[in-house]
C-alpha cells in the first residue's frame, strides 16, 4: 500500500512557517543573559517539529539542516551550552534560511543550498568546538535497532534456528508490553517453526502474588534459519527490562532445563500458549491479505511564489455563528414563502415585518461572512520586531518598537497588501526619522528612539498609525527638493500640510545618498498608490524635532464600499465615503473665477478647484444654473477638488462590481454597483476625476499669481 504524502504538504508548510515565526519571535524576545526556559523550549520544539516533518515528508535537505539547528538548541535547552549573541545571530539567520528553503520547495523549485551549507558548517564548528555532549549530525533513520544483546550479535541466518531464553522483569507488563504479542511476532517471522515453553520458576505463593506482575519466563525454540535481526526486532523494546539470551541452534540443542514438575505442567500451558499463537498467526496472515488499500488522494503540490497561503484559519466560533445566521435566514425565507402563497392585502403588515426581518438577517450574515476573512493585524505586525532590530543594528541607532492594537482585525487580503507599504514607512522612520543616539542626546532626548505602531477600528475602517519621536520631516528640505524637481515654484507659499504631502510625489526622496534601505525612489508615491488601490488613504503630520506620524485608513473589506450616492441629471453616481472631506451648498459668494476659466472655491484658508461632474461625464442636465447645487469636496493624492452635483442622495454600502470585466477601463470610473432597484450605478474614481479635470495646485497657483 502506498499513501501519497503530498496531500499533507500544504499543512506542513503552513505550520512550518508559523513555527519559524515563533522561533524568530522567541529569539528576538530572549534575554541572552537569562533566557526564559519556556521560550527556549518553544524555539526548540519549533525546530524539532520542522525537522520531524521535513524528514517524514521527504524534504531531506531541510531535515539535515534543521537537525544541526535542533542539536544546538537542545544543548542550550539542557543547560549544556550557554546562549550568546553570536549563537543568537546565527539562529536568526538560520530561520531566514529555513524559510527560503521551504518557500523554494513549496514553489516546486530545487532549493539553493549554498547558504544552508555555509550555516551548517558554522553550526558544526560550534558543536564540535566545545566538546559538548552533542550528537554528530546523523539525521534520523527509521527503525534503529537497539544495542545491548547479551549474546553475540551475528546478523547472518542462524544455521538451524535459534534458542531464546526470555526472562522478563516482573514489571514488564506495566510498560504495555505483552509477551504473547512477541511470541506471535516470532511465530510470524519463523513461519510457525516455533516452540514456546513457559517456566514457572519464579511463581510465588498465591498470597504473595501481585496479579499485575509477570512471573513467567520462557524458552523459545525457532527451528527455521531466519535472520538474527528479525528476532532482535521483536525484543527491541524490552531488551533493557528483560534477560534475553539468544543462541544459535547448532548440532546441539540448548534447551534451558526445566524441572520436572514444571515439565508436566509444561505441556498444558505450552499448548495453551502455542495454540493461541497459531490461531492468532492465522488471523494475522489473513489480515495481511485483506489489508485495505488506502485511497490515494492526489492533490497538486501547492505552487506559491510567496508564502501567501490560499487557505485561511477560521475560529470555530465564527463558523458556528455563521451557521446560526443561515438558520435564521432559512426561517425567515420560509415564513415569507408561506406568506406569498396565499397573500392578500390584509397581510401586508406581516409581509413588511418579514422583509424587515430579512434585511436584518442578511445584514448579520454579511457581517458574519466578512468576519471570516478578518484576521488580527498581529500577523503583519509580527514582521516588524525583526525588521526594526536588523535595520537599527545596521544603522547603529537605538530603537524601541512599541506595538498596540495587535488584535485589531482586518481583511486577510488587505493585510497581505498593506505589509510592504508599512515596511517602507517603518524603514523611513528609522532611517530618516530617528536620529543617531548622540544627536538625540544632544537634543535632550533619550538615546533610544521609539517607533510606535498602533491599529484600531474607527467608523467602519481600520486605522493604522506609525509614529516616531525622531527629528520630524524637514520642511525646508522638502520644499527645496520639490522646487528642484519642478513640482512647485520657488515663490510658492504652502501650508505645512501641503509641504508634507509633497513627499508623496513620484521620485521624491530627500535622502542625501541613496541608502541601502530606503530612498531608492521606490518611494512614498508607491506607498500611497498601493494604499489607494485598497480604497484607503494615508496622511502625514509632523513636528520638527518631535517626530512624525503617518495615518493609514483602510476599508474593512475590498469588495464593499461605503458610498455616498449623488444625482447628476438623471444619473446616479457613487463617491467613496472615505474620499469625501465635506459637502457644502453651492454659494456664489464663495466661488471665485480664476484666470477666466477655472472656478475655485474658497474653503476656509485654502482654494479648492471646482469641477462640474456633468461636464466631465457628459451627462444631460436640465439647467446649468449653479444655485441649489451641492459641492462635494473630495480629497485624492493630497489634493482637494470640489465636484458639483445636483443632489445628495443617501449613503449606503455598495458591492463593487467590475466594469472592466466585460467592458473596459473608463477614466474617472472605478467600478459599478447594482442598486436596490436592480439598476447599475457607476462608482467615481476620485483620483481619475482629478486628472481628467486637469487641475492641480500648480495650475491654480500659477493662475492665482497671474490674477
Amino acid at each position, binding site marked *: 500500500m502506498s499513501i501519497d504524502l503530498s496531500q499533507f504538504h500544504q499543512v506542513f508548510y503552513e505550520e512550518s512557517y508559523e513555527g519559524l515565526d515563533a522561533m524568530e519571535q522567541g529569539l528576538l524576545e530572549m534575554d541572552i543573559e537569562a533566557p526564559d526556559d519556556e521560550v527556549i523550549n518553544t524555539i526548540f520544539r519549533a525546530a524539532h517539529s520542522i525537522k520531524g516533518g521535513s524528514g517524514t515528508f521527504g524534504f531531506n535537505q531541510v531535515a539535515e539542516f534543521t537537525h544541526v539547528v535542533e542539536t544546538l538548541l537542545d544543548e542550550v535547552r539542557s543547560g549544556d551550552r550557554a546562549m550568546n549573541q553570536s549563537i543568537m545571530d546565527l539562529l536568526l539567520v538560520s530561520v531566514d534560511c529555513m524559510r527560503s528553503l521551504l518557500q523554494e520547495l513549496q514553489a516546486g523549485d530545487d532549493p539553493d543550498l549554498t547558504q544552508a551549507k555555509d550555516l551548517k558548517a558554522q553550526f558544526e564548528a560550534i558543536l564540535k568546538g566545545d566538546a559538548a555532549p552533542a550528537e554528530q549530525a546523523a539525521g534520523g533513520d527509521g527503525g534503529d535497532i537497539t544495542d545491548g544483546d547479551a549474546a553475540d550479535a551475528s546478523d547472518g541466518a542462524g544455521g538451524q534456528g535459534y534458542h531464546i531464553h526470555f526472562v522478563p522483569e516482573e514489571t514488564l507488563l506495566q510498560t504495555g508490553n505483552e509477551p504473547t504479542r512477541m511470541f506471535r511476532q516470532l511465530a510470524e517471522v519463523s513461519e510457525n517453526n516455533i516452540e514456546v515453553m513457559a517456566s514457572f520458576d519464579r511463581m510465588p505463593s498465591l498470597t504473595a502474588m501481585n496479579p499485575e506482575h509477570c512471573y513467567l519466563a520462557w524458552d523459545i525454540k525457532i527451528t527455521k534459519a531466519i535472520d538474527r535481526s528479525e528476532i532482535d526486532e521483536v525484543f527491541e523494546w524490552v531488551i533493557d527490562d528483560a534477560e534475553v539470551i539468544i543462541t544459535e541452534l547448532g548440532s546441539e540443542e540448548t534447551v534451558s532445563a526445566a524441572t520436572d514438575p514444571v515439565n508436566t505442567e509444561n505441556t498444558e500451558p505450552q499448548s495453551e500458549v502455542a495454540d493461541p499463537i497459531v490461531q492468532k498467526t492465522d488471523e494475522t496472515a489473513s489480515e495481511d491479505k485483506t489489508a485495505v488499500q488506502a485511497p490515494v488522494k492526489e492533490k497538486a503540490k501547492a505552487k506559491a511564489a510567496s508564502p501567501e497561503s490560499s487557505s485561511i484559519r477560521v475560529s470555530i466560533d465564527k463558523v458556528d455563528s455563521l451557521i446560526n445566521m443561515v438558520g435564521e435566514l432559512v426561517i425567515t425565507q420560509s415564513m415569507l414563502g408561506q406568506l406569498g402563497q396565499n397573500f392578500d392585502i390584509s397581510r401586508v403588515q406581516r409581509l413588511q415585518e418579514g422583509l424587515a426581518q430579512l434585511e436584518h438577517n442578511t445584514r448579520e450574515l454579511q457581517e458574519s461572512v466578512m468576519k471570516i476573512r478578518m484576521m488580527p493585524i498581529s500577523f503583519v505586525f509580527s514582521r516588524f520586531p525583526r525588521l526594526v532590530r536588523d535595520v537599527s543594528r545596521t544603522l547603529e541607532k537605538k530603537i524601541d518598537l512599541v506595538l498596540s492594537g495587535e488584535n485589531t482585525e482586518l481583511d486577510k487580503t488587505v493585510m497581505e497588501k498593506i505589509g510592504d507599504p508599512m515596511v517602507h514607512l517603518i524603514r523611513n522612520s528609522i532611517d530618516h526619522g530617528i536620529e543617531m543616539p548622540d544627536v538625540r542626546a544632544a537634543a535632550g532626548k533619550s538615546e533610544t528612539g521609539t517607533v510606535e505602531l498602533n491599529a484600531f477600528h474607527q467608523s467602519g475602517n481600520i486605522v493604522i498609525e506609525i509614529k516616531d519621536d525622531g527629528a520630524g520631516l524637514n520642511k525646508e528640505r522638502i520644499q527645496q527638493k520639490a522646487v528642484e524637481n519642478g513640482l512647485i515654484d520657488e515663490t510658492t507659499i504652502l501650508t505645512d500640510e501641503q509641504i508634507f504631502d509633497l513627499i508623496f510625489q513620484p521620485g521624491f526622496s530627500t535622502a542625501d545618498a541613496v541608502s541601502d534601505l530606503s530612498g531608492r525612489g521606490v518611494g512614498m508615491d508607491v506607498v500611497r498608490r498601493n494604499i489607494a488601490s485598497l480604497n484607503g488613504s494615508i496622511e502625514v503630520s509632523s513636528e520638527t524635532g518631535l517626530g512624525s506620524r503617518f495615518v493609514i485608513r483602510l476599508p474593512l473589506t475590498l469588495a464593499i464600499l461605503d458610498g455616498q450616492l449623488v444625482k447628476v441629471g438623471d*444619473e446616479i453616481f457613487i463617491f467613496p465615503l472615505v474620499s469625501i472631506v465635506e459637502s457644502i451648498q453651492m454659494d456664489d459668494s464663495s466661488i471665485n473665477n480664476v484666470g477666466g476659466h477655472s472656478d475655485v472655491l474658497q474653503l476656509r484658508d485654502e482654494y479648492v478647484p471646482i469641477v462640474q461632474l456633468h461636464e*466631465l*461625464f*457628459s*451627462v444631460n442636465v436640465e439647467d446649468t444654473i449653479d444655485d441649489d447645487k451641492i459641492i462635494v469636496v473630495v480629497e485624492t493624492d493630497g489634493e482637494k477638488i470640489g465636484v458639483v452635483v445636483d443632489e445628495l442622495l443617501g449613503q449606503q454600502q455598495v458591492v463593487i*462590481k*467590475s*466594469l472592466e*470585466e*466585460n*467592458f*473596459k477601463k*473608463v*477614466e*474617472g*470610473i472605478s467600478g*459599478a454597483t*447594482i442598486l436596490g432597484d*436592480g*439598476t*447599475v*450605478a*457607476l462608482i467615481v474614481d476620485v483620483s481619475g476625476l482629478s486628472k481628467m479635470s486637469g487641475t492641480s495646485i500648480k495650475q491654480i497657483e500659477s493662475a492665482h499669481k497671474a490674477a
Partner: protein
Amino acid sequence: MSAVEELDSDEKVDIDQVTTEQYLTFIMEGEEYGVDILAVQEIRGWESATPVPNSPGYIKGVINLRGTIVPIMDLRGRFDLTKPEYGPETVVIVLKIEFDKGSRIMGIIVDAISDVYDVPLDDIKRTGFGENQNARFIKGLVTVNKHMVILLKLEQFITFD
C-alpha cells in the same frame, strides 16, 4: 454531424461538405446579419441601460445581467447606420464572445430577430466585400433562401475602439 463515414471505393465524399455551423440571424436596416449560435447566451427585450461617460457613442451603457455588469452596444451605431427609435421588436442579443485571452459578455441591440440557419462552411464567401469600412467585422457572406446573410466576426467587437 459525424465526419467519419465509410468510404465506398467508387464514392468519394468530400469531408468539408459534411461540416456546418449554426447561425442566429437578425435584421438591421433591411439587411440580415448572422452570429454564431454558440456565442448566443440569451435574448432580452430592450430596457434602459446606465450610460457610461466618455465611451464611444455606439455604447448605450451597461446593464445588470444577474449580478454581472454587461455593456450594451447599438450595432447600428457600430456600423454607422442611421438610428431609428427603439420599438417593441427591438431586441438585445446577449453574446459571450471567446477570444484568446478569455471571454467577454456583451449585448447588441438589433431591430428584430430573424431565424436560425445551418450554414455549410463551404458556402461562406470570405472575400470580396470591397473597401467597406465595416469589413473587419465581417466573417463572410452566405446566401440562404435566395437572400444574402452577412456573417459577423464577433471577436472584432470586444475592443471598443
